[in-house]
């Protein structure tokens, strides 16, 4: 095939902790075709131009959640963003905002994972059931309530979009709160009261100022802003109810 390739400039934020005092931009000239994603551009750099560039990736189909990066300043999945949409301009790729840079495009995910582990992201059954008794019944409507929030791929784009997380990393943050809500809203689950303790804290939903950018960038339509903000109502109700029995209404 005698296709003359177009060439795009990809500007990547580099940071190698053992060599560089601080991050800097490095530009690579990458030949590309119509269907090439930004991730494929990075893979080309890694294979052909500079083997020292580090980044995470795997599935190439926007489901494993590995390849998030700031692309021209916006949190995106590299495998689902296309070079053709930036050409003839250059495209700038940086590690996800608000996370510490470990190296090049790799950010530290420990904080996110730690939070995910804290919210009890599993079913605590209302009524235990043996396998022989078969599945719990759940109507399509009950399923509908959790499906959207259970489609989170843990890509952390919403964290890179949320300034409140950037300002205060103690904030549990949009993605994990969406998962928390997913379990609270599950018809099979009984651990809501436990999880509400996290929701009710300052670092729970109350750090959110409804910026809403988290939902804007979410590649899977999870709408984490909705999960967080509807839980403000839930948390407020929880708050006022917890005063009630003592009769000391404010």
């Amino acid at each position, binding site marked *: 095939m005698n296709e003359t390739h177009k060439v795009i400039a990809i500007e990547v934020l580099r940071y190698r902790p053992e060599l560089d005092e601080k991050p800097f931009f490095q530009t690579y000239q990458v030949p590309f075709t119509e269907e090439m994603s930004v991730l494929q551009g990075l893979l080309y750099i890694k294979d052909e131009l500079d083997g020292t560039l580090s980044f995470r990736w795997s599935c190439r189909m926007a489901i494993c959640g590995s390849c998030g990066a700031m692309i021209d300043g916006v949190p995106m999945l590299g495998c689902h963003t296309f070079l053709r949409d930036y050409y003839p301009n250059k495209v700038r790729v940086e590690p996800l905002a608000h996370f510490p840079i470990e190296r090049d495009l790799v950010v530290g995910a420990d904080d996110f994972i730690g939070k995910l582990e804290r919210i009890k992201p599993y079913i605590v059954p209302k009524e235990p059931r043996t396998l022989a008794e078969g599945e719990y019944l759940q109507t399509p409507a009950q399923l509908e309530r959790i499906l959207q929030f259970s489609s989170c791929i843990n890509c952390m784009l919403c964290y890179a979009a949320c*300034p409140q997380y950037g300002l205060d990393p103690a904030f549990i943050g949009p993605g994990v709160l969406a998962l928390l809500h997913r379990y609270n809203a599950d018809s099979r689950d009984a651990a809501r009261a436990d999880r509400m303790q996290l929701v009710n804290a300052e670092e729970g939903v109350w750090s959110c100022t*409804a910026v*809403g950018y988290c939902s*804007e960038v979410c590649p899977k339509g999870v709408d984490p802003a909705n999960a967080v903000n509807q839980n403000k109502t839930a948390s407020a109700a929880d708050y006022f109810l917890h005063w009630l029995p003592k009769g000391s209404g404010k």
Partner: protein
Amino acid sequence: MSARRPYIRSMDGWWRRDPFFIRYMIREATALLVVAYAAVLLLGAIRLAQGESAYERWLAALRSPWSLAFHLVLFAGLVYHTWSWFQIVPKTMPSISVGGKKLQPAVITGTGLVAAAFVSLVLLLLLLFIGS
């Protein structure tokens, strides 16, 4: 010892980073106007309590060109507030299904805006009725 040395980026000027954040900051800034307007009204209430002459002075001040200009700014700001407020409302509600179909956020926002227009209009008509 590990050679890890995570680099933390600064948040300085974060709100200039993205047009979305600028819109957010404008939205938040409408709060200043809401407070300012509340102050104007509060002052009116205090003057009213202080008696006729005090109140007349407040009323006169409202008629000054400065005040009119200021209220134009307030008006624009509050319109933006209304618009942005109903943008967030769908985020604060559990999803609602109507006839098996999920209600789209835009529909909720639209309903809110129509409600605001309606209430405002009723208010105006009421005053027109009283005035005449």
